[in-house]
């Protein structure tokens, strides 16, 4: 428990800070708590919250980032989703999209299924893996000072950027985005590409 208490940052406050002044940033949220956090910060047509497809958030965001090189694409996802798609960190690193930032909301738990420990609870270092893949920015954030330093990197330095943010394991009220995938897709495309986009 001492270890859990050492993770001081609260996920919803962290995500609210990351998405403040988001401008025209494109946001992909991995399934589960990350999607609820992003929605709690304010539903937005340029959010794509996932309701499934575990392990797919990073690869999905890669396609988006490559298609929209002038915009920042930000992935917010949990440690469980990222661990299931670890290979996609290698795939991203090969392409080196400068406009892609990946934030791991790492509570070291599978939050939707009963708070079972993930591999990061045993010390697996997500930022270390990203660094080994060759991400030019790969860092772990554990407190407010480090978070303040990481936010400009997440928003604007040439990437790909990977930041693992250690957060408390806490169960929060659900704040759910729309569930219909076609609605999520169409509202995003029309906000990005114009009203004629189907």
């Amino acid at each position, binding site marked *: 428990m001492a270890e859990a208490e050492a993770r001081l940052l609260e996920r919803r406050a962290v995500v609210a800070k990351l998405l403040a002044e988001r401008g025209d940033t494109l946001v992909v949220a991995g399934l589960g708590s990350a999607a609820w956090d992003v929605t709690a910060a304010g539903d937005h047509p340029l959010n794509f919250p996932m309701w499934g497809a575990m392990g*797919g958030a990073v690869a999905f965001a890669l*396609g988006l980032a490559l298609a929209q090189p002038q915009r920042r694409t930000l992935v917010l996802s949990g440690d469980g989703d990222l661990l299931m*798609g670890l290979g*996609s960190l290698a*795939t991203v690193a090969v392409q080196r999209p400068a406009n892609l930032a990946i934030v791991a909301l790492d509570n070291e738990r599978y939050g939707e299924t009963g708070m079972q420990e993930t591999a990061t609870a045993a010390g697996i270092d997500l930022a270390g893996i990203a660094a080994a893949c060759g991400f030019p920015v790969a860092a772990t954030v554990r407190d407010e000072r480090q978070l303040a330093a990481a936010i400009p990197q997440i928003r604007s330095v040439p990437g790909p950027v990977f930041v693992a943010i250690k957060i408390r394991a806490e169960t929060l009220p659900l704040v759910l985005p729309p569930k219909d995938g076609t609605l999520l*897709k169409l509202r995003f*495309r029309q906000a990005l590409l114009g009203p004629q986009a*189907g």
Partner: protein
Amino acid sequence: MAEPEDWPAEVFSVFRRNDIRQVAYVPDAGLTRLIALCRSEPAMRAVVLTTEEEGVAMVAGAWLGGERGALLMQSSGIGNCINMMSLVTQCRFPLLAVVTMRGQWGEFNPWQVPMGQNGAAALRLAGAHVYEVAEAERLGETVEAAARLAFEGSLAAAVLIAQRIIGTKTFGRGGHG
């Protein structure tokens, strides 16, 4: 018009006509030439994957951002894609997949047979529309038709290229790599 045996050039020209900008792939010997053509085309981004399901997600993300993508893989990769197909079917993302088949015709490796024999059914169960092609001269038109279904119909379409077209792998005993 390309010669029938040059089906990779024909499929590539279909990709160009359909403005495919992102090509995600896990290689297969039978895809070597098509992958090389895509990699050498400045208007395309060819992305090597660590597993095929990444490509299902990646080309969906491409569409979200206004670009068209295609996924290239061999039949053994079909099984890796199954859950990620929920992203495609629930959001009605277009998916254009070109799959070279193993485990069908003169296969020497029994481990290729499960996906070779069941890949088409697995893709259908996962929500894709499947076109099985056994003649090289039909490939170009079939990929064109599949692209239209995918991008005009917002559906998942997979073209399965029969092993007989590709040739049988023999590990250096006279067949195609």
